């Protein structure tokens, strides 16, 4: 337990370092970007005075470091700043609602792909080199690197355009909440599921095969334990461990995928918000989104790590050989 706690502290420390560096990178990146935010806001007919005035008003004329520290101190106080377009409208008021939506979408995808890919991955591993395995493995291969928007387009064509079962746009009607419109989650979540299924099921398959090939599984079989029992009691627990890490690490991909999927379906989440922010060069919003993705991703890997170390007795009870 102690060990888990120390892992937690270590990860927390590195998370902070990560965030600081990340924030600096984003900030500098935005700094070198060509074009002018103020010009962007004011458009073609902007007067030079207008541009200058706007820069002044939004504090864009201050030196980078001052702006950076202003921003960082704000973030520490929980104030992500204002959207560049909306004086007085804090990013906090824009972002969190969308983050909530994205998390629900991610969770939906999670609920679909995690059991699906683990079950099928285990099945493929157990039925190694049999037709069942070939089919599952091919599906995994085919979906693994298929961009979300491609599978999304196929899904839209089938379920939205041809069958008309599901809405092809995932917009929440005004005055209603996401929970009243859960059907809009399905197609985007399925698009994400495709890619994730590919990754996770393949990983699960190979770790299952590796575990089934291990000495201790052999030992269990030679102890006369029935095959089914060996698979569930002896193999599965060990075979799931690497998968947990893989799922944790792929949360990053998942968030990349969210941007694409949300853009494709017009889903009001963080991904489409980031896309809008990029298109409109809403610098504080870009910074906030990227920072948040970093936090979510780092937190999820941290939780994965801890879960892993908790489930793995080798780490949980790491002690001398006594």
């Amino acid at each position, binding site marked *: 337990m102690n060990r888990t706690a120390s892992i937690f502290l270590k990860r927390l420390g590195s998370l902070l370092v990560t965030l600081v560096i990340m924030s600096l990178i984003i900030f500098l990146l935005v700094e070198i970007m060509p074009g002018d935010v103020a010009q962007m806001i004011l458009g073609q007919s902007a007067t030079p005075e207008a541009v200058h005035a706007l820069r002044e008003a939004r504090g864009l004329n201050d030196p980078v470091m001052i702006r950076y520290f202003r921003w960082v101190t704000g973030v520490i106080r929980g104030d992500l700043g204002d959207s560049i377009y909306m004086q007085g409208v804090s990013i906090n008021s824009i972002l969190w609602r969308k983050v909530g939506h994205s998390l629900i979408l991610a969770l939906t995808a999670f609920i679909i792909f995690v059991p699906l890919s683990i079950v099928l991955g285990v099945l493929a591993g157990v039925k190694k*080199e049999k037709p069942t395995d070939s089919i599952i493995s091919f599906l995994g291969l085919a979906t693994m690197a298929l961009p979300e928007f491609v599978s999304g387009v196929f899904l839209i064509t089938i379920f939205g355009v041809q069958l008309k079962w599901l809405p092809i746009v995932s917009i929440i009607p005004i005055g209603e909440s996401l929970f009243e419109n859960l059907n809009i989650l399905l197609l985007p979540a399925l698009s994400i599921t495709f890619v994730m299924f590919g990754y996770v099921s393949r990983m699960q398959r190979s770790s299952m095969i590796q575990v089934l090939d*291990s*000495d*201790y*599984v*052999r*030992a*269990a*079989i*030679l*102890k*006369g*334990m*029935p*095959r089914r*029992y060996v698979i569930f*009691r*002896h193999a599965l*627990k*060990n075979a799931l*461990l690497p998968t947990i890490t893989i799922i944790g690490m792929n949360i990053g991909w998942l968030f990349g995928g969210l941007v694409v999927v949300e853009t494709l379906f017009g889903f009001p989440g963080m991904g489409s918000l980031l896309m809008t922010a990029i298109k409109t060069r809403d610098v504080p919003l870009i910074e906030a989104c990227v920072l948040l993705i970093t936090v979510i991703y780092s937190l999820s890997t941290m939780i994965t790590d801890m879960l892993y170390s908790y489930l*793995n*007795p*080798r780490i949980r*009870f790491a*002690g*001398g*050989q*006594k």
Partner: protein
Amino acid sequence: MNDNILDIEHLNVSFKTFEGEFAAVRDVSLSLALDESIGIIGESGCGKSTLAYSIMRYVASNAVVEGAIKFKGENLLEKSEQEMSSFRGNRIAMVYQNPSSSLNPALTIGFQLDEVGIFHQKLSKEKARKASLEALKMMNIGDPKGIVRRYPHQISGGIQQRICIAMAILCRPDLMILDEPTTALDVTTEAIILDSINKLREKLHMSLIYISHDMGVINKVSDQVVVMYNGEIVEQGPKEKIFEHPFHPYSRALINCMPRGGIVKENTRLNTIPGYVKRRGIIESGCPYADRCDQHTPTCESMLMFRQVDNLHYASCDRAYAKDGEELVIKKRTPRKRIPKHIEETEDNEPLLEILNLNKVYGSLRKVYAVNDISVSVKSGTVLGIVGESGCGKSTTGHMVSGLFKPTKGKILFEGKDISIAWNKRSAETLKDIQLIFQNPGRSLNPSHTVEQIIARPMKRLSKINSAAERRKLIVSLLNKVDLGEEYLLKKPNQLSGGEQQRVAIARALSISPKLIVCDEPTSALDVSVQASVLNLLNDLQIDTQITYLFISHDLNVINYLSDTIMVMYAGKICEFGTRDEVMAPPYHPYTEALLSAIPEVDPTKKKDPIRLEGSLPNPGKKQKGCPFASRCPRKVGAICSNVYPPMVKLSDSHYYYCHIKPGPKQD
């Protein structure tokens, strides 16, 4: 039919691979009576494990099994997978080589033991636990109640293996198969396990199949011996017969190539078997050993029937030593005399290598005190043997000398020059003078370079021989020196057998004519037959060139054979130091004594009582105050042992050890 436990009839196992189908077990017939113990012996790759797994009906998917395996009259090969479950672990149990990977890391020891009882004997959880504790007690494991709550990684290798054996005897099986259960363990641990296996046999009356490549081990636990070569049984009979009157040329060669029983380099040269085990396709016939046999005749091409040599003694060769009388057999078994070459007077020489208060601490957060305050000196032209259990710091010492690490403290003087620095600071001269040969030749040769590149590189770098033609000439002569031909130049390491690889490694070390070669267990990864040839080679080279060796091994027989002086190490410290004859004769340091007693003897007539060393090496992460051996010492004097570092007991100019026990006759 009969009351045999096991009858294997004409068993054939072949594997389908990319290179075609080859036979791993060929026409093996074997019977095992109740309470009988058979030892199966043979070099690596001879199909021993395959045979064992076939009995358990656990073979790879690319295997084809033919024949019959009858367990108490029931043919196991005809059983369904489900029916087999009731045999496995219940009536036939098996223990394998690697205990640490055979236990499930995610489950507690107790769980893994209990499930056997729960499944096979339908016990309740509590009863199963009781049975498990009992089995653990039977294996002499202290604190069984604590052990069952632990996970495998929290337990040392020796105890893990004892748990595996306990698991195997839970259901009181009729037959137990042990596949090299002690190969991965230290001799002292091995001795304990062999001991308990023998005790179990007495108590439980079960039949045993014990697989090993070590004749000493087989000698200890088996009544009958089966010698396998390349998938076939070449000889079979009571162990006394086989060890004393080996009939088949292979058995004979195998027995003779081991350095043992006081054989030393001055008076003997080890027997060797040329060549290596070649896989044979299923259609090839004839004597499998024909290509390596010194008694080879054209008729060997067609396989011969098993032939009864004596009552219960069979062999599959009819001519080799058939006509030899008993005396001749013994004579042939004795290693040939070697032309003794006198060692030059090195007495007044300055030592070539001098180690002064050498220390090595690994890591900074988690410290490992690997070598603690060692001082020793090596004279030019002699062989210093370093022996000790795994983890005692032998390799670390050798590696510091060769410059892989910088010592944490202390000095290494080479020809009076301080070389206690790492490789990147050493002069080319020093690098050239000290060479290192590793344990695993497969890993010490770059798999993507050719033999020529491998040997040429140090010549180019350190001897500054820049002409490729000149280098090639030298390489060819080096290859000849290590009994390899010119055709090896363009081969890559994975095209060579283990022995050939080690020869290439030796050639590489010799290529720049060093003054000192550190040999870090150069033969432990090799089969006995290959070990013999490598030892011979090293010995010959040493005589030819008067090179100095720092020879590291955990095998006291090998050390005894090759060394002039011996250093026994324990937990990073020197226990005993002296010339070979001094160390090998009493009085001993208690650890040396235990080590010597633990070596399994090949001669079935000699009976030895090993000194049981319980426990394991002290935690290398802590600095030891007293005698490091105190925790396991059977002759501990008192609290002083664990509190005060023992003084040096000097028995002669060259012989000393560190112990609180006063020299003199053993006090018991």
